[in-house]
């Protein structure tokens, strides 16, 4: 059972507020005394997921759940879905817009970086439906 659940709406194309959700998650977990190394991994993965929602999705939600053993991050969007997940998981593969690249993002590092930072990583996607990513971080 989760002790704490926070959900944030993340909108397509809203670069201005990119990072707000992840900063809020990081600050909450810091207040709760989460170890700084774990906290940094959660923050990086969360920020990557949030940026992906802004850059690639039609909009979605980022949810953070915490229980005594784990922190769980869930990114769920309403499309457009990923046609080839294996390709999307490759470093350097990117379909990001010029707008994202000008801001310093969209280098094709996001998904692999999320997987690397999390202790558990699962992605499911259906073109036309959406993408769900679940990441788990062990607290002990």
């Amino acid at each position, binding site marked *: 059972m989760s002790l704490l659940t926070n959900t944030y709406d993340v909108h397509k194309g809203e670069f201005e507020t990119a990072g707000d959700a992840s900063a809020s998650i990081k600050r909450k977990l810091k207040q709760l005394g989460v170890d700084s190394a774990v906290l940094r991994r959660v923050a*990086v993965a969360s920020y990557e997921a949030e940026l992906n929602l802004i850059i690639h999705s039609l909009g979605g939600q980022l949810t953070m759940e915490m229980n005594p053993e784990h922190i769980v991050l869930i990114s769920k969007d309403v499309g457009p879905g990923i046609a080839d997940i294996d390709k999307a998981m490759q470093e350097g593969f990117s379909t990001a817009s010029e707008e994202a690249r000008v801001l*310093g993002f969209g280098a094709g590092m996001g998904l692999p970086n999320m997987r690397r930072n999390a202790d558990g990583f699962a992605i499911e996607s259906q073109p036309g439906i959406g993408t769900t990513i679940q990441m788990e971080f062990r607290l002990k």
Partner: protein
Amino acid sequence: MTIRELIPVLDARVLCGDDKLDQEVKTACGSDLMSDVLAFVKDKTVLITGLTNVHVMRTAEMLDIHCVVFARGKVPSEEILEEARELGIVVLATEHTTYTACGLMYVAGIRGTNERSGAHA
């Protein structure tokens, strides 16, 4: 090395964080690509960049980067400096290019990291 000791190495000036210059510097990363910064940065890192948008500070916040150096004479906007002040990040500016700034820091003994950050680095 401390951030204070880094200032003469880079011929830098302090744009904010005067009271936080005695923090240790362990490693550094030079990039305009925040995606790469997110994949490589570790603890007590200085970020050298030519990118002057607010996402630089956001990226620094996520990674606990405690010092950002703006290279090639670029000066960030007051909005960005305000964000840095709120986050407690030291901001330096140097006239050197990113390449030269990185070289000067390397010669001074600050190494980069080739290892990926993360749980499965």
